[in-house]
């Protein structure tokens, strides 16, 4: 089961990111992970939250352009070589990564969670699961 990431268009000027976090905060939406992709002219914020659908509709109501993107969330041990071992599986299964970011495992401090964006989420998930990798569900992410 893939996880829904929210992608938000951000105009390149001071205060835009703060306006977005302000909207999320006032609606009690809890951020699990964030990443910011930026170009010279604009940015895209990528968010993992406790309630993705609620977050998207809230952002749209406040005149943000936001969309849902399926990504894979995978837990790894928070130790040297943890990510490297996981990426072995990606290599073995020829799964190409478009982008990746990490967040700590919350209460479970010896674990970390990696978010992967791949071209074909379903196919990648099937292959990685077959190779023994545990892919987190939306529910598991929400409960972290």
């Amino acid at each position, binding site marked *: 089961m893939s996880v829904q990431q929210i992608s938000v*268009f*951000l105009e390149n000027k001071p205060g*835009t990111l703060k306006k977005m976090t302000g909207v999320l905060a006032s609606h009690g939406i809890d951020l699990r992970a964030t990443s910011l992709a930026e170009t010279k002219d*604009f940015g895209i914020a990528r968010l993992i939250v406790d309630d993705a659908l609620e977050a998207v509709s809230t952002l749209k109501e406040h005149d*943000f*352009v936001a969309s849902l993107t399926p990504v894979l969330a995978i837990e790894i041990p928070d130790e040297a070589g943890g990510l490297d071992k996981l990426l072995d599986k990606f290599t073995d299964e020829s799964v190409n990564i478009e982008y990746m970011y990490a967040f700590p495992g919350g209460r479970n401090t010896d674990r970390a969670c990696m978010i992967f964006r791949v071209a074909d989420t379903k196919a990648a998930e099937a292959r990685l699961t077959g190779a023994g990798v545990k892919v987190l569900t939306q529910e598991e992410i929400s409960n972290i």
Partner: protein
Amino acid sequence: MEHYYQPEIECAPYEEIRKIQSEKLVKQVKHVWDNVPYYRKKMEEKGVTPDDIKSVDDLHKLPFLSKADLRETYPDGLLAVPKDDVVRIHSTSGTTGKRVVAYYTQNDIDLWEDCCARAIMAAGGTNEDVVQVSYGYGLFTGGAGLHGGSHKVGSLTIPMSSGNTDRQIMFIKDLNATILCCTPSYAAYLGERMQEMGYGPDDIPLKAGIFGAEAWSEEMRQSIQKTMGIKAFDIYGLTELSGPGVAFECSAQQGMHINEDHFIAEIIDPDTGEVLPEGEQGELVFTAIDKEAFPMIRYRTKDICRLSREKCSCGRTHVRMAKPMGRSDDMLIIRGVNVFPSEIETVLLNNGYAANYQIVVDRVNNTDTLDVQVEMTPEMFNDNVGEVEERQKKLMADLKSMLGIKAKVSLLAPKSIARSEGKAVRVIDKRKI
């Protein structure tokens, strides 16, 4: 079925129209000679007297009037009747310099409203229609002109004026408005708001729109037609000549018929003032041959377009003018190149962006810069940075090939560009020249 307000004149043979024009012109030149010292002096300087004007063929002998003359004679130097006979004034929006005050006798108002009635019927309107007039009322001619035209047709007229967008939509729905009259930029905004409220084309009772008072592109027409499920018709006019209704579109949507029984149109070379053969592109010049209070002879509009006398499928015989690219007042000169905002609009809509844009011109280190700012839309957004950048690059390439100069493209957050309820402010020119 094509509807006409005055079919006998709208579909009259050209020879007949030409005859009417000649008779009225001779009379009008005498009227002006006798009553407008300012224009009489211009004629004397050119060595022309009313005796030299025997038909439309002599029109070219007369001196031009321009905006500069209107400024010089402000507020009433061109008034041709005693003030007792004047029943109303209107005034320009003053977007380009000093306001122009135009005067009307009751007869002037009647003929103007006839012109607007022709436009409404050409858009399919009859006395069974409900016409919502969302042009501004007041000094601006838009509201009053279409309001009067709608009365003449016998349509139920909703005098909305502009503003309060949600109430506009409520009235359209609750009163079953079938024809909407406003500026194209306000129509686009109304369409956007209707979509937000969850109304599709089938939920909106409108069947037609009559949109004018600013330059708009064919692509914008297509977009408005789709959003509201209507046919969108262009209408043309100037306060100096009466207001909207100098020319209007018919069912063919291929150029606007000029009301030639009231206005004689010429196309001239804007640099030399020479009259160009019909069909060539140049500056549009009008002579108002019926106006009593504020008669305009050879008034230079600064609008660049061409005329066509090709037979029209609607049956009207009056000459058609192509959509002007915009007043030459709207034209920007950037790095020595002529740029019309409507050209930029065409490129934006062709690339899938909405008609919410702003053009910022500045001068940095003695070089003009052009920044086209457009709002991001859900359709154009993608989680993939590369794809969004590709689209931005394609837009820049298309702008370059349309304009001939390089433009920067800035993607803005939705709703960050102010929506217009009347004439849209598209251009911000920060250059200090």
